[in-house]
């Protein structure tokens, strides 16, 4: 078979034309006949008992079809990913748990009329004191958000390896530090949206931007008691997810609106509602202690993580698990004791965000390593090299697989990119800093029970006219899965890309595929697709062999034909062959079901290095990124343009996390309700020089040798920037985001020559978190 004609090429995305012409329909663009508009009434209080909901005024307003409260809902009024403890609507007599809890909903003939009526729903609350930090929520006597969770503990994890007492006993140098990471918002450009309607057969159809059509169907069934065979969920092209649309967002509310008001409904959140509603990156407090010999060999690591789970569970257990393994990174650590806990609070909700705890862990780990390097008076890179995991050896954490790529190779490549250290101009108030950090990001290979150990399916159909359809249950977030699957199918049948149609995210047409998360779809869906195309190829070749009177082994797929090897003139057009198969009753639709052969609970992983040169102006505190480089072991790259797009995008999200993003809550209220207050990187924030390199070492069990890289892109840049800043100005950075005023305050405290040592700034690092 002709190999590599489409795989490995930067073919244009199959959905690119629709996106550049504005033809692509996102959920909020869909118009249904007779469509009404919904609006949610959110609680203005993070914690309050709902005394009475008076809908009379709202119900009487123009254009209002229905005002809905908990009383109107069929079913349990409860849903949720791992614990079904989220209410759809908080009923009278119960307490709200955050400002994203809904107490009522309005369905009206226009969005504007729905908004006006929502504002007229009169709710009496008994306002209660919210718990606004994990430490406060852990105090004895604190009220319990969930009766079943003692001490407001959502979940906890512990990992023991070796004996840290022995390890620290043998250590000649011990360092310890605590790091604070804030709440980061996914800030996808498309706010949550969807349309829903019930058809004449009583089947509910939900079209919405989401990352898990099966999970959404499950939640609708749980909350509204609709039979599963009557729930059709179709994922629309997603305008950015990053985990923020992984758990059910507005789909249960939307479904309830359509069912109770008995009209087709569209529900779109505005940006402020989106900011308060969906779960964000867990804020964490991470204490790490490292013990090492004078030669830099690490003997022991001890760590504790406290994460703010927000009001509901959701992804906290998984996030903690990944935080724990992230604390170790790509280093040999013989003695480990780590503990992590996620604590309920009345702040905004926490859940899935690209990286799932690994970015937080990377900050603590790489920063404490630099602290150890300073204590040892050793070059930070040299310290890391002395402790690198060797190729072929398994990392300490039991969740991780083998490592085919050497960290030494990554080191060599990143040093080549960085070149000599820049020198600040004479008499300048700028200080130059450099850092090189490493990480070991993970991706799901179908060996984690909750993610895909039970199997991942994809269906491929060859039509009688020689076209091909692929049905796959993940969703297109912009990461490019649709294109990658089309490329694989095209490669398998030697067809041009245009003959392949990929349909994503439909719980009816696609076999179960699990979630669009954990950087898992290329690996899982790709493997499932190849199983399906493998069987179809057999069928097609058997029929062609019969027609051409040769053995099937003598045939190959090439240029939209099936040809006899060595005799290209003797060929059948793929379309003609497909028609014959159809006429003869051959099975032309196959479902591939992929199950990992691994018998242990593990992730696949990849290695990466990130390096940064920064210039920090000690007179103004301004931070300029002179150069940012990322080198990532990418496995076989299926589409370079898309793969690098992921690297660039992830690195810039990581830059935002380190330097500007903070979803601030005070007393459970959001202080950053728009993009004016919550700053994300713009085109102006790009580093002066920004490069990425992929090392292609085929991953043995990956489709065409591919691995998952979507999250890897995000992990390493933040700690690299922090350590480079610390290197530049000799200031330890232990909280993000780092802003000019922090640099100035710290620099003035030190009275560095060139800084304006005037009044002390009252900003401290920790106040920002």
């Amino acid at each position, binding site marked *: 078979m002709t190999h590599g004609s489409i795989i490995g090429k*930067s073919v*244009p*995305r199959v*959905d*690119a*034309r*629709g*996106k*550049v*012409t*504005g*033809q*692509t*329909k*996102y959920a*909020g*663009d869909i*118009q249904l006949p007779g469509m009404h508009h919904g609006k949610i009434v959110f609680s203005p209080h993070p914690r309050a008992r709902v005394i009475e909901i008076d809908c009379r005024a709202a119900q009487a307003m123009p254009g209002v079809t229905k005002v809905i409260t908990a009383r109107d809902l069929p079913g349990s009024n409860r849903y949720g990913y791992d614990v079904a403890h989220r209410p759809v609507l908080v009923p009278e007599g119960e307490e709200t748990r955050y400002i994203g809890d809904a107490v009522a909903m309005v369905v009206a003939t226009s969005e504007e009329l729905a908004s006006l009526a929502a504002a007229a729903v009169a709710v009496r609350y008994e306002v209660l004191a919210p718990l606004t930090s994990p430490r406060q929520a852990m105090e004895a006597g604190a009220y319990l958000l969930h009766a079943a969770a003692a001490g407001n503990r959502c979940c906890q994890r512990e990992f023991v390896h070796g004996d840290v007492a022995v390890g620290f006993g043998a250590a000649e140098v011990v360092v310890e530090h605590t790091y604070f990471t804030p709440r980061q918002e*996914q*800030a*996808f*450009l*498309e*706010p949550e949206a969807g349309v829903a309607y019930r058809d004449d057969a009583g089947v509910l159809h939900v079209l919405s931007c989401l990352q898990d059509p099966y999970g959404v169907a499950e939640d609708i069934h749980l909350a509204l008691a609709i039979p599963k065979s009557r729930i059709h969920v179709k994922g629309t*092209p*997603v*305008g*950015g*997810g*990053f985990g923020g649309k992984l758990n059910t967002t507005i789909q249960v509310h939307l479904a309830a609106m359509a069912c109770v008001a008995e009209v087709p409904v569209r529900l*779109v959140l*505005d*940006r402020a509602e989106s900011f308060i509603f969906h779960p964000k990156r867990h804020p964490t407090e991470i204490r790490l202690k490292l013990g090492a010999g004078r030669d830099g060999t690490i003997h022991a690591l001890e760590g504790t993580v406290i994460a703010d789970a927000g009001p509901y569970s959701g992804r906290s257990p998984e996030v903690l698990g990944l935080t724990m393994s992230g604390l170790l990174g790509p280093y040999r650590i013989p003695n480990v004791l780590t503990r992590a806990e996620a604590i309920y609070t009345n702040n905004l909700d926490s859940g899935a965000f690209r990286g799932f705890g690994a970015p937080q862990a990377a900050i603590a780990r790489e920063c404490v390593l630099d602290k150890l390097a300073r204590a040892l008076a050793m070059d930070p890179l040299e310290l890391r090299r002395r402790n690198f995991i060797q190729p072929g050896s398994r990392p300490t954490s039991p969740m991780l697989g083998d490592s085919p790529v050497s960290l030494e190779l990554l080191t060599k490549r990143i040093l080549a990119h960085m070149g000599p250290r820049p020198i600040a101009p004479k008499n300048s108030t700028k200080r130059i800093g450099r850092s090189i950090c490493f990480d070991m990001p993970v991706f799901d290979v179908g060996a984690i029970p909750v993610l895909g150990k039970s199997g991942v399916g994809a269906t491929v159909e060859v039509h009688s006219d020689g076209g091909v359809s692929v049905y796959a249950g993940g969703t297109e*977030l*912009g*990461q*490019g899965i649709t294109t990658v699957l089309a490329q694989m199918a095209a490669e398998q049948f030697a067809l041009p890309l245009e003959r392949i149609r990929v349909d994503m995210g439909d719980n009816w047409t696609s076999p179960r595929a699990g979630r669009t998360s954990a950087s898992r779809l290329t690996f899982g869906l790709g493997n499932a697709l190849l199983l399906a195309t493998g069987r179809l190829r057999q069928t097609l070749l058997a029929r062609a062999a019969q027609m051409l009177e040769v053995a099937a082994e003598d045939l190959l797929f090439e240029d939209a034909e099936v040809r006899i090897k060595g005799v290209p003139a003797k060929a059948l057009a793929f379309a003609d062959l497909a028609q014959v198969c159809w006429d003869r009753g051959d099975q032309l639709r196959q479902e591939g079901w992929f199950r990992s052969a691994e018998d242990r609970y593990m992730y696949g992983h990849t290695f990466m290095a990130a390096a940064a040169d920064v210039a920090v102006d000690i007179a103004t505190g301004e931070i300029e990124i002179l150069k940012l480089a990322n080198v990532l072991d990418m496995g076989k790259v299926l589409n370079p*343009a*898309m793969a*690098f*797009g992921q690297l*660039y*995008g*992830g*690195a*810039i*999200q990581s830059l935002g996390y380190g330097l500007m993003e903070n979803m601030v809550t005070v007393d459970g209220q959001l202080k950053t309700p*728009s*993009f*004016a207050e919550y700053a*994300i*990187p*713009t*085109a*102006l924030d*790009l580093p002066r020089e*920004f490069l990425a390199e992929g090392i292609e070492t085929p991953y043995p069990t990956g489709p065409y040798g591919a691995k998952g890289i979507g999250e890897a892109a995000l992990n390493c840049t933040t700690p690299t920037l922090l350590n480079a800043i610390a290197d530049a100005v000799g200031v330890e950075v232990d909280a993000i985001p780092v802003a000019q005023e922090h640099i100035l305050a710290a620099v003035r405290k030190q009275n560095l020559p060139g800084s304006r040592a005037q009044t002390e700034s009252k900003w401290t690092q920790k106040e920002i978190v």
Partner: protein
Amino acid sequence: MTRQSLGLKVNGTSHALELEPHRSLLNVLREDLGLTGTKKGCHSGHCGACTVLLDGAPVNACMVLAVQADGHEVTTIEGVAVDGQLHPLQEAFIEYGASQCGYCTPGMVLNSIALLRETPRPTRSEIQEALAGNLCRCTGYVQIIEAIQSVANGSK
């Protein structure tokens, strides 16, 4: 609220409308004219997803009242390709992988069109400056800038 009569010329087509004066151009384009290519990201002038051209100049359609556009020419993303023929910038966005989720793309394309009309050979800094009001969360801006540069340098 009393409605006001106005004439909106969008992508070369004139529309006679009667609207409440508080309605934004963005909402009118999307809901009344069915032109959903212009996206709503924030409706507060911060994200740039709703960028359209008003008499050739890029504006956030959410920050323009529809009545303000009375008698003016509006160009939306639907008006960029002509008879199915893509604009060089659209082709460049496709070639360079400048679109991932695609939500910021219409605004980026229109803003870039305006930039290149004004500054046919912009520097990297000038491109960054022009795009500062168009947020993108997926791409990290690199391939968007490369796409624009390729058109500016005449390689398209």
